[in-house]
């Protein structure tokens, strides 16, 4: 039988635990708010300064010495094309490497070393990738200062992120799924293509988008390999012109990207260019948000299809 003083002690104990609970709740909210409020303040400031500049012309004009008629056409086209190349290179390579490490590779010291290296690569400063790409893609492979070089550079940059995300989401699949497949006589590839990849695709997609969101804002490696600042023409569209361009001629065209255009405008003396820079920054954030939104939507669609 509990004595009244014991009950008092238990109540005090519970009250103390609850106080700590509330304290950490508040601490967590403060920590969260520091991030959220900082970002909101920056974003709002940028939006207030930039939105008045946003009109159709801003998207369809090339850069110009006159702030009022300068636009981001070459920059957003460049960014989009570079992102396409990055995705085409990083996604298949990253997923294949992740699948191999999880499903095929024997567990020994060699794979351990590879694993550690991949994790470390994710932390290498982006300028290092830029220098590597300058030597390898631009000069060694002779790809020049092109969209292709830039896309491949950023692909290298986000490859570790894609590989790690692929492996994490493959590991989250219950072993019983795998064993069931093998029990029916499936080969490893059949298991991977019919079960592992479809079930892990939501997680992989998240990883890909996080990587792409990092790549879209990268400036240092792109400048290193020679992105331009003033470019008032677009890469040739496939089969356009006379004689007709090849299907992939655009990939070897010179280019610029959004962060470079933005940086150039922030360093101009005329105040009107600062509004342009804010507007370009606003568009860049929207591009990132749109990418994240697409990822959430796709993830939702894919999750619905999983029937375990």
């Amino acid at each position, binding site marked *: 039988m509990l004595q009244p003083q014991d009950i008092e002690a238990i109540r005090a104990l519970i009250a103390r635990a609850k106080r700590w609970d509330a304290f950490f709740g508040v601490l967590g909210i403060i920590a969260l708010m520091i991030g959220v409020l900082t970002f909101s303040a920056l974003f709002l400031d940028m939006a207030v300064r930039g939105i008045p500049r946003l009109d159709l012309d801003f998207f369809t004009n090339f850069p110009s010495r006159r702030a009022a008629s300068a636009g981001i056409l070459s920059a957003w086209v460049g960014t989009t094309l570079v992102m396409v190349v990055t995705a085409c290179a990083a996604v298949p390579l990253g997923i294949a490497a992740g699948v191999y490490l999880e499903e095929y590779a024997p567990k020994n010291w060699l794979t351990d070393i590879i694993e550690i290296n991949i994790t470390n690569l994710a932390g290498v400063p982006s300028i290092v990738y830029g220098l590597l790409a300058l030597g390898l893609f631009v000069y060694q492979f002779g790809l020049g200062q092109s969209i292709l070089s830039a896309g491949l550079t950023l692909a290298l940059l986000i490859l570790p992120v894609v590989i790690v995300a692929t492996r994490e989401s493959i590991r989250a699949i219950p072993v019983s799924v795998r064993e069931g497949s093998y029990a029916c006589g499936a080969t490893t590839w059949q298991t991977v293509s019919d079960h592992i990849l479809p079930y892990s695709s939501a997680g992989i997609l998240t990883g890909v988008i996080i990587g792409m969101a990092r790549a879209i804002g990268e400036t240092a490696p792109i400048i290193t390999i020679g992105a331009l600042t003033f470019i008032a023409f677009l890469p040739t569209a496939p089969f356009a012109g006379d004689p007709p361009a090849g299907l992939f001629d655009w990939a070897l065209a010179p280019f610029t990207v959004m962060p470079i255009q933005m940086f150039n405008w922030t360093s101009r*003396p005329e105040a009107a260019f600062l509004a342009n820079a804010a507007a370009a920054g606003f568009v860049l954030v929207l591009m990132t948000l749109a990418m994240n939104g697409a990822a959430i939507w796709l993830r939702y669609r894919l999750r619905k299809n999983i029937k375990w």
Partner: protein
Amino acid sequence: MNFPRNTVFAALAGLIAAGTVHAQALVKVDGSSTVYPITEAVAEEFQKAKKNAVRVTVGISGTGGGFKKFCRGETDISDASRPIVKKEMEACAQAGIKYVELPVAFDALTVVLHPSNTFAANLKPEQLKVMWEPGAQGKVTSWKQVDPSFPDMPLKLFGPGADSGTFEYFTEAIVGKAKSSRGDYTASEDDNVLVQGVSRDKGAIGYFGFAYYIENKDKLKAAMIWNGSKFVAPSAAVVEDGSYQPLARPIFIYVNAKSLERPEVKEFVEFYMKHGAALTKEVKYVPLPANIYEVNMEHVRKMKLGTVFGGVPEVGVKIEELVKRETKE
């Protein structure tokens, strides 16, 4: 679920196989960020005039980075905020790159103060040297130390970072040795940061390009500089007549001689010389005297190769005298 494997692989294979670039007239310019606004304006107008038949690209790699690419033969024209130096001349010679040196405008450095500062409105280069020389680091911290007649007010220095051509020229002109400066000042590659800094601090002094001062006239005060015979306030007129010394310098473009054989490059350079003066004014730089552009045209026609500086930077040379000199390769 269907994975679009085949399409992805086909696309990759296609990307790698894409070998040929379209042969379209292209003029490649790279180099100094100081010269960039002028070249950008010229490129914009040139493409318009040519109805986009010729493409022009302009990059910002800095004067040094621009010359590196130029001497590898990767660019047709190099923007430069200082003359080519010995090491770069050797690199070009080794690669067999010959070039024509063309001054295109003046860049005037402005020494700026907080608007409330009245005591330092007139400054001599020697006083600036006391503030900026490496020996001043940590020692010269009050205006009183610069000149006994100045009040005992904390001295706050603002200037561009060590990679900039502006920094190089200012140290050359004031301290006497390029890139030799005290390190304990607020440095930024973004001149707008310097504008903000100087306009908020009563004891501040800083330096940057004339265009940034003109755009921010209401927030800053420009110091008048002793040119050896009188104090001169920076303005387009004094820069042009050569009396704003030692803080005005010509800036250049270097044209690859082989590229000049291509009609599009030659036309671009001629366009630059013809419309350069008007466009220079528009982007708030000071144009050269009109006849210099004609002399430049003459140099292009005669292919006057090499530099008139011989790889050594100089301070306070007259532009008229400069273009008459013999060149060295």
